[in-house]
């Protein structure tokens, strides 16, 4: 009985998640990619941009052009996360590099 309830609960969540992904539309895509671009610009200003970010954003743009906004959101979210990590890398390396100097 408890197992059946658990399966039903997971199924409902899966349907809701799938619904939200399918429901990703152009405004959601635009918002996700604007955030990704803002993070990319910040990383670039710090001279720490990764070369993996622009290809992700290009793929996102292609997905959106094909009407697959959900995929576009996913790719831009990944691009934003990568830029956020590279910004953290820049901040960390601002001091950490000194410890690596040959002494």
């Amino acid at each position, binding site marked *: 009985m408890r197992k059946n309830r658990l399966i039903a609960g997971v199924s409902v969540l899966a349907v809701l998640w799938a619904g939200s992904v399918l429901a990703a539309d152009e405004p959601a895509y635009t918002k996700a990619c604007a955030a990704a671009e803002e993070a990319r610009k910040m990383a*670039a200003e710090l*001279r*720490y*941009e*990764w*070369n*993996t*970010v*622009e290809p992700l954003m290009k793929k996102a743009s292609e997905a959106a052009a094909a009407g697959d906004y959900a995929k576009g959101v996913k790719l831009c979210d990944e691009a934003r996360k*990568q830029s956020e990590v*590279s910004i953290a*890398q820049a901040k960390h*390396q601002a001091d*950490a*590099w*000194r410890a*690596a*100097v*040959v*002494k």
Partner: protein
Amino acid sequence: MKRLVTILLGAALVAGLAWATPEDDRKAFIEHYKKRFPDVAVEDYVNGVYSIDEEAYEQWQEIEEFAPYELALAEGKELFETPFANGKTYGDCFPSGGVGIRQNYPYFDTESGQVKTIELEINECRESNGEKPYKYKKGPIAAISAYMAYTSRGEKLNIVIPGDPRAQQAYEDGKELYYSKRGQLNFSCADCHIYNAGMMVRADKLSPALGHPTHFPVYRSKWDDMGTLHRRFDGCNKQVRAKPLPAQGEEYRNLEYFLTYMSNGMEVNGPGARK
């Protein structure tokens, strides 16, 4: 009392690090490689990875018999000697007519307050004589630079860091870039070419940083072409999945300043041939 001693020792350590001069850095650099490769003579590092890989050294010696950079060298000589539309030549822009001067580059130009590389000055020479600048990573600029290096073979690198605080800062900035981890793979130049020199990355052995700038520009089999040192910086950055910085931009010129200073006193043997 114990706490005071700790604070004083800490302060001394910090001060010691802060006061490390370029010459202290260079000596520490050399000592590192002496410990890492005790059988390799310091002067042999001009041969890059071949200084630490006997088998590859033999193959390289055979390649040098019909050096793949010879065509570029001939092209570079011709370009170097051919007058611009106004009748002047590259020789008019450089000391000693541009012959046998590679060992003095890069240098800090107190007038402009920036590091000048030989490729930067080749293009400055072109522009001041009404010619369009070349692209910085390959092609004619690599050929001219190769020829200028060739005329300097055997001369010892003599990079000067003057007392000008801007020069010191340029050196420090280059040093920071060399030791900073970058890209998605989180690697610094030092991670590969200092701490893992001699280790394999897939099928390639990582070359030691000591002696790196002596043999540029190089003909790389991978490129099937000549390339400048900044082309190689660009490639290294891409390999660690960082977006490369502009060739001959301030960052890479400062990086070259630091890296070349580390090889001070070593013989120029460019252009080189590499895998």
